[in-house]
């Protein structure tokens, strides 16, 4: 690979910046040096990755005066090494996001000991939970990429996932419509991309047909103005954390174990072969290590001796609106205006999400898209919220917002997924840079990783054996909000806990919370209960139900109230009892 060509082009493109380039035999280019701003740092990485001969970019660039926080794994590693080997497994999966959970469930088909190691207290605590739940039809992805292939396959596979795992999937369809004839060109461009990628059922429809497909267009008065639309019937909507929970539960039912609150601090290798991982709670030896560490995947890969990509976090802020503000459209419906087209042309990576609805019929705005330097910075700010809200034009107002939050997309510079058995460390599988459409692609990602492992196992003389009693079905817990009054009545007669409503806003009962707490992957915090049941997700944001959820969690886990956390770690809600002087006296005496 001719580095000098890149260097020459670089000088032209970024005059004044000094960066040194080096490439390995896989055409992975490493950047070193100091550059002016974080924006430039990201832009240089992206520009380099776009050179046709470059496979991916590892960026070691810094910005003088800008702190780029690095996680210090040393104390975790020391703690783990002190404990020695505590577990032996066939497969260790690092990270319990949508990719990790999907792969765990896929591998649970085989007679393998599979452990999922997660640094937080629950599944789906990273990018997965801060996702807008769109199962993209695959029209927007660059043709020819791994993303495009897995997006299309994954979208199709969701129907089976939803059936087997019992989560809500709504094939709402997606529509981009134009109200000016010249903009039909933009539709044609998108259509040809959709066709190239193989998006199911994509077609350009007339204004009349568009209004039939989406009655919301007429309800909001725009119907008669619609000239034409691109219709993508395969668009789906899910609650992303529900999918992850369903996968994890089914995986556990089939023998997988999840180890929460465990940070992987090192990957053990020996002569080009992976040997296991060092966690803060002991060493786990394993034949395969699958890296689904999301925003930290590049660091884990480096631990395995395979530094082949760099994650630069791209923050997205999402706003959830009160259900009283009814979504205008059933499908994901976007007005393709000249401004939107310009925004698309300007943002080569992503312009973020617009307005959509959740399967529970909340309007969801965003996510925004902002490059940041700190992976752990999940703070919201006025600019990002304004961007997310601004995508709704005058149709939404801040007064409708009940909650906003941020998540960081694990973007690499190649803007494609990195899924492969490491050519450096055998047995170590990268599932990295899984940003959008990572949720839509998840079933295909899981299948691809299963194939990698199965193929390798066969080649290395220890082929995988399928379990005879593998059960693909997960029976979902009752969701009373979806039931008729008669069905509810019968259920309450069976189990009176379903007759006590805990969360007023979303109508969630004690029975539903108890079912979650007693499920195969029990939630350990108030937010974890929220993700499983929706208790606290409504307009009062837990103002009324949080004490009740806390009480149930404490009771079921046998904990004191002060031990219950909002979201794991040190996020305890209550610090001490205020009626315990006598008790405290007894203890101290």
């Amino acid at each position, binding site marked *: 690979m001719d580095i000098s060509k890149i260097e020459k082009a670089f000088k032209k493109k970024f005059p004044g910046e000094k960066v040194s380039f080096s490439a390995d035999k896989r055409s992975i280019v490493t950047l070193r040096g100091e550059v002016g701003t974080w924006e430039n740092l990201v832009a240089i990485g992206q520009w380099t990755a776009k050179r046709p001969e470059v496979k991916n970019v590892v960026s070691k660039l810094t910005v003088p005066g800008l702190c780029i926080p690095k996680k210090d794994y040393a104390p975790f590693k020391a703690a783990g090494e002190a404990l020695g080997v505590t577990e032996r497994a066939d497969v260790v999966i690092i990270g319990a996001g949508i990719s990790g959970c999907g792969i765990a469930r896929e591998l649970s088909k085989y007679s393998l000991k599979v452990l999922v190691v997660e640094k937080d207290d629950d599944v789906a605590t990273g990018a997965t939970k801060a996702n807008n739940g769109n199962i993209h039809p695959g029209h927007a992805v660059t043709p020819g990429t791994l993303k495009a292939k897995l997006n299309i396959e994954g979208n199709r596979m969701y129907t089976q996932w939803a059936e087997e795992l019992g989560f809500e999937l709504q094939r709402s369809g997606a529509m981009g419509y134009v109200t000016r004839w010249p903009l039909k060109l933009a539709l044609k461009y998108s259509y040809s991309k959709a066709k190239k990628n193989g998006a199911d059922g994509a077609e350009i429809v007339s204004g009349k047909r568009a209004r039939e497909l989406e009655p919301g267009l007429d309800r909001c008065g725009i119907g008669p103005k619609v000239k034409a639309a691109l219709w993508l019937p395969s668009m789906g909507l899910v609650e992303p954390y529900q999918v992850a929970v369903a996968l994890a539960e089914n995986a556990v039912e089939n023998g997988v174990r999840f180890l929460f609150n465990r940070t992987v601090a090192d990957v053990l290798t020996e002569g080009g072969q992976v040997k296991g991982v060092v966690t803060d709670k002991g060493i786990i030896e394993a034949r395969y290590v699958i890296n689904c560490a999301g925003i930290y995947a590049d660091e884990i890969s480096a631990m395995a001796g395979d530094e082949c990509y760099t994650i630069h976090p791209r923050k997205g802020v999402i*706003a959830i609106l009160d259900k*009283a503000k009814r979504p205008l459209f059933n499908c994901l419906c976007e007005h393709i205006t000249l401004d939107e087209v310009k925004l698309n042309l300007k943002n080569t990576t992503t312009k973020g999400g617009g307005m959509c609805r959740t399967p529970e019929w909340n309007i969801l705005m965003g996510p925004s898209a902002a490059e940041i330097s700190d992976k*752990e910075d*999940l*703070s*919201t*700010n*006025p600019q990002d*919220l304004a961007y997310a809200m601004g995508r709704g034009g005058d149709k939404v107002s*801040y*007064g409708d*917002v*009940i*909650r*906003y*939050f941020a998540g960081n997309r694990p973007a690499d510079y190649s803007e494609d997924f990195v899924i492969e058995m490491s050519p450096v460390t055998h047995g170590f599988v990268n599932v990295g840079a899984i940003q959008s459409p990572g949720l839509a692609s998840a079933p295909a990602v899981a299948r691809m990783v299963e194939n990698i492992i199965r193929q390798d196992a066969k080649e290395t003389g220890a082929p995988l054996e399928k379990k005879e009693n593998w059960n693909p079905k997960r029976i979902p817990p009752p969701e009373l909000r979806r039931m008729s*009054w*008669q069905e*509810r*009545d*019968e259920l*309450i*007669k069976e189990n*009176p*806990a379903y*007759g*006590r*409503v805990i969360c*007023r*806003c979303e*109508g969630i009962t004690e029975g539903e919370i108890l079912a979650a707490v007693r499920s195969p992957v029990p939630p350990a915090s108030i937010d974890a209960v929220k993700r499983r049941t929706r208790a606290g997700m409504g*307009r*009062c*944001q*837990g*103002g*009324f139900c*949080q*004490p009740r959820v806390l*009480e149930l969690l404490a009771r079921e886990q046998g904990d004191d*109230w*002060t031990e219950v*956390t*909002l*979201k794991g*770690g*040190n*996020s*305890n*809600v*209550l*610090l*001490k*009892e*205020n*009626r*315990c002087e006598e008790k405290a006296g007894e203890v101290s005496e």
Partner: protein
Amino acid sequence: MKHIDSDIVVIGAGPAGMAAAIKARELGTEKVLVLERDTEAGGILQQCIHDGFGIHRFGRRMSGNQYAQAFADRLAELQIELKTDTMVLELTPQRTIYACNKTEGMLEIHAKAVILAMGCRERTASQVLIYGDRPAGVLTAGAVQRYINMEGYLPGKKAVILGSGDIGLIMARRMTLEGIEVEGVYEVMENPGGLTRNIVQCLDDYGIPLHLSTTVTEVHGRGRVEAVTVAQVDENRKPIPGTQRRIDCDLLVLAVGLIPENELSRTAGIEIDPRTRGPVLDNAFMTGVPGIFAAGNVAVVFDLVDYVSESGEIAARGAAEFIAGGQTSAAEYCPVLADGEVSFVVPQRIRKDCREATFFLRVKNARKTATLRCIAGDETLLKKKCMHIAPPEMLTFSTDKIKGGALTVSMEKEGEADD
């Protein structure tokens, strides 16, 4: 599914609902049923262990619990049926109520009249646009009050309070008494949101500073709250750059306003007034849907519980009359308009045949003296001098001189616009 027929069903057993149920029975209504989602009657008063309740009604200062107990005792004395732990899930315009509880399962209740008394809820951090992290230790004042007063736990060591409404002030004192350091109370408006007596008794007496025209803009901390950023605001309530200050604390208490809980009202198709965020009411406190009445904080957020109970009684009278009269078609209405310094008046309209009514209103600005007028056409029905009026304090008046036609309720500065 169990079917129940009732005369008057009251949804909510707080101070409005209990007063309504008691009045309905006293007026001779036979089947009165109260549905309460909590384990006990009393509503939010259960956690209000501070005093100052019942001055108007009982002529003495009671705690919230005592006030609620007085009504609960009367409820029991009159043998009014109360279903606790019972959640209403849907209300139809035809006054069918779907509710559930543990012991009876689903209930389908047909009511001749319904009185809504669900109270209100608190605004949250997202609703007042606080940015930053989302750690544990950001709680509404009501939640803090519940944890401390009912559950017996402290949610922090050092607190910042945003909002100087009454609940914020009460909690400033309460937390101080429990050993939580209250760094200060911050108020985005240029005037305090709570009653003067609470500023004096809850902040001044304890040396807690009140920072006006200042708000919390950001929360810091990934597990628990570690600090908040406060900033002064301009006349448009936008933070002024350069005035930010970081305050270390582990608890942010939000007392940033109350919102009537009208989700059930919406299922019944009841029209909501965007200013009060409660139903549009007539002089009997009937909503736009015949036979469905509203009382207490679900109708409009009151400042004193005495008024809450009074509104319950007005609604009960209306409901009893509705049943007796069997009104089937919608009444003809005349509007009640807010003018001058009056920000809103409840009820928002009166029936054409209405001759006497009680009104509740709030003003836009604080004034030492001002004149309240209720005018019908050219005729002044009521003229009343008011002293020390302020937006947080609700005003009320009654008149029996109504002769039909629109009413205008105004508040003018003394000496101005005098005819």
